[in-house]
């Protein structure tokens, strides 16, 4: 090892990363009013005096949102606070109807949990500081300029999103690399999907992630200056943004400069972060307990009931699926996409695991990618999948034809797999008498090939099989065709 390198070059830094993840809950109504939650629709069509912050309106807590928070807390091994309170976070912004956000502050509903992640085969436990409930803001459309806030002429505000319940999950600064951050977010997302409390779509913003990134010399225990990075809307973008931020801070420190404590915006296209606002100008949020709302005090019975109703969590699911003989990469796809729900329903209806899993992870995932939709949104029930698997297992459909039927089902064709297969004439011919006749015709039509087979050239049978398949438009049961040809040519 050379000792001639300079001190600066020799200093190696370790990244310290914590994530703040916002999960938009899939409750039927908003956090504090009865407005329905939904996508699309006219601007401000899902608003009322409460979520518009009209004078005199008052919030009332959605019990289902509280249950979702407790369920996530239990899944993450958190303590459920015997009493928790809503606070007001005061700051002015046009997309916030009351110019304060109802959130939780020093007494959040869930405290001190953990999440296990695996990176490069190594398992790590990441601490969860807290999970708290809050309300979402409205959305602003920036008009003029490039459509971004900078350079815009004016903005138009839609409060349909305002008041949608959010859970904020804050991790300890236990993550050390972009890979770990990605693994953490993916695992948290899998837990949320398993609980069914959110559709957790990073791309659509129903799951949002901010990263706190700092560096410190390897071996040091004191944290460096922290930078908050925002606007990552995929796992890939989270990884890229953190890698970029680590590189940037390394350059700053290596040049002997201090890292500035600030919030930075990740620009996905440019692949860089840029300052959003510096912490010096940060508002004083003047938190205080919201006098319009009362404490939430879940008793032991309530918590026990929710604990008993918890679904299987991803780590357990993975072990169970591995136990069914499914390979690890396939298990990962099933869990991360949430397709495990469809699989489990199909298994419950008697489907063979490997066939069912293949149809999901190969065919359905491929179809979703080609159609630009989320696999979890694919219109396939477990019962339909089981029916399709049954058709393959009993030889009615080849796996190739099964894919066609699956695509028809996904395309919205009614009737179910069997009816679709029959209607399209895709059902495999396994009728021996019917195939015998075809085989006889094919052998008679190509006596040369038949002779080569009789002479012991086993490969020559392929041409005859192909001819049978052509004649039956691919519907002949290949195994049966082989059998019949063998019997015909080697009596």
């Amino acid at each position, binding site marked *: 090892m050379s000792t001639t390198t300079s001190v600066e070059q020799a200093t190696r830094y370790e990244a310290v990363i914590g994530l703040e993840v916002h999960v938009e809950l899939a409750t039927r109504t908003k956090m504090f009013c009865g407005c329905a939650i939904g996508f699309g629709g006219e601007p401000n069509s899902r608003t009322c005096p409460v979520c518009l912050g*009209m*004078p005199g*309106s008052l919030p009332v807590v959605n019990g289902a949102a509280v249950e979702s928070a407790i369920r996530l807390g239990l899944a993450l091994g958190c303590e459920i606070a015997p009493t928790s309170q809503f606070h007001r976070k005061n700051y002015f912004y046009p997309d916030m109807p*009351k110019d*304060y956000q109802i959130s939780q502050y020093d007494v959040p509903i869930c405290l001190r949990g953990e999440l296990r992640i695996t990176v490069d085969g190594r398992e790590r436990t990441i601490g969860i500081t807290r999970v708290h409930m809050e309300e979402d803001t409205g959305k602003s459309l920036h008009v003029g300029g490039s459509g971004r806030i900078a350079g815009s002429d004016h903005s138009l505000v839609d409060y349909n999103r305002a008041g949608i319940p959010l859970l904020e999950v804050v991790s300890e600064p236990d993550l050390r690399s972009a890979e770990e951050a990605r693994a953490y977010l993916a695992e948290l997302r899998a837990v949320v999907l398993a609980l069914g409390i959110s559709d957790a779509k990073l791309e659509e913003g129903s799951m949002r992630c901010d990263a706190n990134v700092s560096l410190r010399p390897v071996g040091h225990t004191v944290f460096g200056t922290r930078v908050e990075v925002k606007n990552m809307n995929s796992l890939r973008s989270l990884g890229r943004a953190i890698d970029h931020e680590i590189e940037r801070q390394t350059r700053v420190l290596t040049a002997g400069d201090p890292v500035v404590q600030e919030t930075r915006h990740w620009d996905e296209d440019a692949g860089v972060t840029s300052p959003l606002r510096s912490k010096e100008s940060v508002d*004083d949020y003047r938190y205080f307990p919201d*006098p319009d709302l009362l404490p939430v005090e879940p008793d032991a019975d309530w918590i026990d009931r929710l604990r008993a109703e918890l679904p299987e969590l991803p780590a357990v699911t993975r072990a169970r699926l591995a136990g069914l003989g499914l390979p690890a990469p396939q298990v990962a796809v099933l869990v991360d996409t949430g397709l495990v729900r469809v699989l489990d329903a199909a298994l419950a209806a008697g489907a063979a695991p490997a066939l069912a899993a293949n149809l999901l992870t190969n065919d359905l995932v491929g179809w979703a990618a080609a159609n630009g939709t989320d696999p979890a949104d694919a219109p396939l029930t477990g019962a339909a999948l089981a029916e399709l698997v049954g058709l393959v297992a009993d030889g009615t459909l080849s796996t190739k034809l099964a894919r066609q039927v699956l695509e028809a089902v996904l395309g919205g064709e009614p009737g179910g797999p069997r009816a679709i297969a029959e209607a399209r004439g895709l059902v495999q011919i396994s009728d021996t008498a019917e195939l015998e006749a075809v085989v006889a015709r094919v052998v008679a039509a190509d006596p040369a090939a038949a002779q080569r087979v009789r002479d012991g050239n086993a490969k020559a049978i392929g041409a005859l099989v192909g001819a049978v398949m052509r004649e039956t438009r691919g519907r002949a049961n290949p195994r049966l065709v082989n059998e019949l040809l063998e019997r015909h040519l080697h009596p």
Partner: protein
Amino acid sequence: MHALLTASAPELLALQEAGDASAVDIARAHLDRIAATDDRVHAFLHVTADAALAAAADVDRRRAAGEPLGPLAGVPVAVKDLFATCGVPTTAGSRILEGHRPVYDATVVARLHAADAVVLGKTNMDEFAMGSSGENSAYGPSRNPWDLDRVPGGSSAGSAAAVAALQAPLAVGTDTGGSIRQPASLSGLVGVKPTYGLVSRYGMFAFASSLDQAGPFARDVAGAALALEVIAGHDPLDSTSIPQAAPDLLAGLERGVEGLRVGVVAEFLATDGLAPGVKARVEDAIQRLGKLGAELVDVSLPHAQYALPAYYVIAPSECSSNLSRYDGVRYGLRVPAETAEQMMAVTREAGFGREVKRRIMIGTYALSAGYYDAYYVSAQRVRTLVTRDFADAYRRCDVLVGPTAPETAFRLGAKTADPLSMYLNDVFSIPSSLAGAPALSLPVGADERGLPVGLQIMAPVLGEATMLRAARALEADLALDPVPSGANALEAPRP
């Protein structure tokens, strides 16, 4: 004076049932009275004459058809401009909400309609209920019908002035630190601040959420009790609403005070600045209670002296947050500016009056980093101490009595220069507000200038029935004329 104008709410119900007056007669008499007198009283910011007459006609039609009617059928009510009224201007006495028409009705308003009351319009008030004289209204002050050079008290200035001026038999106000009781005292009316949570706050523009409470004004105890029964009761739209049905307040009203233990708050009567004329009337009323069979008990509220400073931390803190929403984005005034942030700041600067800005500033400061514990949390601890004082007192008595306000109606402009002197008007009303307990003001006579004096009767949480019963006994014994001495003169054209 027109008999329909001096009649109480129960009397108006009886007149209609007997066929001696129609709801339209009653509504028209009061609307005429408003038209004839409000240029001087300025109790109303907005009169809904057409809607009132239509509602009255509907009551008459349904009565004629033998259909069931609500408990306030055909009785006119004036509503403080702090309650959202769907499609009807609601300003909270503020420039920042000039012309604002809410898209929904406050629960209190909806309950008045459901009870078949006839809503006459919206009454003037100190801006966002901050004030004790009505002079903080952006639309000019209301005047006291007992003496037009004097204030009717506040913040529910117009509600008090309207009932005192015989423009309405009933009015609804709100009381955060005394805004019903103090104007009731200064205007010679019965004014009730109920238990916090008894009346829904939904649709009542928030000043200090943990203290705000709606309640009635009337010229008689029975009218106030009737109105309170109508507006009280659980509302699922207000999380702080007590989950109980409205109490029956009329049934035991005439039961008297025999054996009732009445606590006399020593600190209140010993307060510097308690006007001698007020003290004399209050002491006389207390002696009358004793003669009527009540047991008089001396009690102490040792932390009451800290209630006023605690209130002036808690109320401004909550108001600073509650009034953030008036930012020029969704409703109300907007003053144009380059950026959204500037627009908010100049809109709020132009739209809020002096007292509101003062309280927003105090509250913002008290909640800001580094001061929160010293001010807000300390004030909340004082709140606990005051509540404990009341709990101790109520171990030995059923109701407490003392003055409602330290003095009678003062002249317009007398206190506007010194905010602290104005704040002292609420020194006796604030302790019950902090404890969330009910209290009322009952007229008990006049001072040497002929201005009304109010006795405050306080009760433990949900003790409204006992409190009203004591008030009724004293009211019957005093047999005062509730009509202001100058009420007839109001009809005369301005000199």
